[in-house]
């Protein structure tokens, strides 16, 4: 009898004293954290691309002889096209592939 009553009390859930907006608050914090992380990742990515392009431009200007510059200017649109493709693939990877792989 005594044991039964004790077991019953031990199984009784505690009175929840969380605020009514608890779920909303947590989701808001988590979403803000995720957005901040994405912003940080995007910034690092763009800084890397920009640094690479800047270093390439400086390299071209400093080390490439004059007559070769004409050729480089001619093939530059292809380079830009490849760069654009890389950006698109990166976006597809971030948006669709990585989330599925992480699961």
């Amino acid at each position, binding site marked *: 009898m005594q044991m039964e009553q004790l077991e019953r009390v031990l199984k009784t859930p505690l009175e929840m004293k969380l605020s009514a907006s608890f779920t909303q608050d947590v989701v808001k914090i988590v979403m803000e954290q995720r957005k901040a992380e994405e912003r940080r990742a995007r910034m690092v990515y763009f800084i890397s691309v920009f640094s690479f392009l800047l270093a390439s431009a400086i390299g071209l200007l400093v080390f490439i002889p004059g007559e070769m510059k004409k050729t480089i200017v001619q093939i530059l649109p292809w380079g830009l096209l490849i760069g654009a493709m890389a950006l698109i693939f990166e976006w597809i990877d971030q948006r669709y592939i990585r989330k599925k792989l992480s*699961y």
Partner: protein
Amino acid sequence: MLQIMEEKDLVRRILAGEQSAYHEMIQKYQRLVYHMVARVVSNEQDCEELCQDVFIRIFDRVSAFKFDSKLSTWVATIAYRQALNHVRKTNRRQQEQDLDDVSYQIGSEDRSFEQQDYSAFIQQLIMQMPEQYRIVLTLYHLEGFSYPEIVNITQMPEGTVKNYLFRAKKKLMELSQPYFGIEIELP
């Protein structure tokens, strides 16, 4: 099997960033997290903040969950560790508690316990126990975890878990005897 499928689906939706999945996760496990935290932290505000921290950590780590246990076991493990860390940080100077310290002041002015709610009386006694005892009681009786699951959550040996449960219940039985008309020996 169905439960695993549902858990996998929930985790997949969380990783895909679905807000409804976050809500579902919190609704589903907030009682478990609350029980784990409230058993260790008595201050209401601290308790709510710690519950928030537990869920933030859960969402932060969910991609690392490999389904080698039930989702509830994993959630309880995170809640347990967070709660213990909190206690260690805040009560660094507090003396080590012992089960023998759990008592009821018999003969004091506060001898109104006979009129008190039995449940509230037991809860008060539990809150006087060392954290490990409280946690084991909560996991076993309140949340219905098995011994291997409690071992998984707390990393205590199974013998220790059983011993804590036995000693805690024995102590509660001893101290609650006045409710059943059994006289307690006065010191």
